[in-house]
Each structure stands twice: as C-alpha cells, then as structure tokens.
C-alpha cells in the first residue's frame, strides 16, 4: 500500500516534471520514480517476467564496466562475489526478496472491519429513522395464536416443528 502510494506520488511529480523539462526520460537510473517515461521500457520486479525489459543499472561505473567485460569471458573464472555483483547489476531484487510477504494484510483486514462497523452504524440509523412499523402479524399476541395453530395442525411432525412439542404434557420437549 505504501509502495503504491509512493508510485502515485512519483507519477504525479513525474508528470509535472515532464511538463516543465524538455527531455523526457532520464536514463541515469531507470528505477528513479521522480521522472517516469512510460513510453520507454522500464525495469520491474515481477516473478512472471524474470528478465525485465531493461537492466536495473543502466549507467555503469568504470569498475562495473570492467566486470561486464570479464563477464564476456569464461564464467568459471568469475568469483562468487563477482557473479552476485553481475546479478545485482541487472536485477534489483532476487526472487525471495520480491516474493516475501508483508504485514499489509493486517492493515487491510483492520480497514475492512472498521468500515464494516461504520456501515453497521449507518444501517442501525436507517432501521430506527427510515423504516416504518413492522406488520401486525409480528405482535406477541398474533405469534402466540399462530404457534398454537401450527402445533394443532401438526406442522412437520416427523423431525421439525411439531416434533419438538410434547402433546401429552402440552409443553416443549
């Protein structure tokens, strides 16, 4: 949620920046959210695109350039640190890093309950101030007569309503 809000703010500031400056995309760091040229290929951390459109680091320092040159040779001559450094040049996050969960679900769930509660207050107000009276067939007297009639009629005598009434003792079982 915070990342998406930062993205929105970045897009907004990026829009105004683009309007004021002449050149659109700054290739310095494609993951810079300040200026976002949506017409140029962008880097992304997604499990379903393991090879993004652009490498993470576009402008290489001299040291990084040397590493890239070494990469053109046999890879058995690369040390473990060099291999990791090459990976980090083209990728920002590894798969475990990008897939790791967060505690956002707690916020989401809390927000859901909060708004459910608020809706409950509105519904309660509506019940008190908007709805009219309930039909007369819900009055205590009517319901008593109705229940007695249902018992007399043997409504659902096998497993249901009248099954729960004791006809000898004339009371509920």
């Amino acid at each position, binding site marked *: 949620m915070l990342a998406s809000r930062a993205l929105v703010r970045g897009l907004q500031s990026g829009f105004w920046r683009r309007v004021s400056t002449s050149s659109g995309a700054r290739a310095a760091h494609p993951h810079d959210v300040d200026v976002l040229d949506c017409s140029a290929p962008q880097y992304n951390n997604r499990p379903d695109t393991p090879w993004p459109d652009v490498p993470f680091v576009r402008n290489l320092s001299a040291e990084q350039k040397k590493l890239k040159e070494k990469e053109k040779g046999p890879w058995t001559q690369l040390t*473990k640190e060099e*291999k990791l450094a090459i990976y980090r040049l083209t990728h920002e996050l590894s798969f475990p890093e990008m897939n790791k969960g967060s505690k956002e679900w707690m916020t989401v769930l809390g927000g859901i309950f909060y708004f459910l509660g608020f809706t409950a207050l509105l519904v309660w107000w509506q019940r008190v101030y908007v709805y009219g009276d309930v039909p007369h067939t819900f009055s205590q007297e009517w319901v008593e007569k109705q229940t007695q*009639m249902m018992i*007399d*009629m*043997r409504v659902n*005598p*096998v*497993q249901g309503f009248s099954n729960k009434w004791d*006809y000898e003792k004339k009371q509920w079982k």
Partner: protein
Amino acid sequence: MSLAKPAMRGLLAKRLRFHLPIAFALSLVAAAAFKYGVTEPRKKAYADFYKEYDAMKEFNAMREAGIFESVRPSGE
C-alpha cells in the same frame, strides 16, 4: 555455489500422484459422513414415526383443536 538442478519435468504428475488419492479419500469420507450422519437418521426417524402412527387418532385430535373448516369439533 553449485545447487542441485531442480526438477524440470513431471511436476503435474507428481502433484496428481500426491493429491488425487487424498481427494478421492476425502470425497468418499464426505459422502459416507452425509449418508450416516443425515440420510440414515432421517430414514429411521420417518420409519419410527410411521410405525405407531394412527391417522384417525391424529385426525380427531386436530379436529378437536378446531383447525378444520369442513368438520367442526364434536362438541358443536
């Protein structure tokens, strides 16, 4: 830094080999539970109810309660 090569093939087959017997077993359990938890007690309840059911007795009881319009209670 050399990891074992991950499994590249037969992933669905492996999953099915594990999950299908469980799925079948659980389905059978669910069906058995419904049969012996719901339908057999229900059949027994109906059988017991109608074993000692006297329709005329019930009719007369209902008649005396006054719910019928075609026959009034015997007193009137």
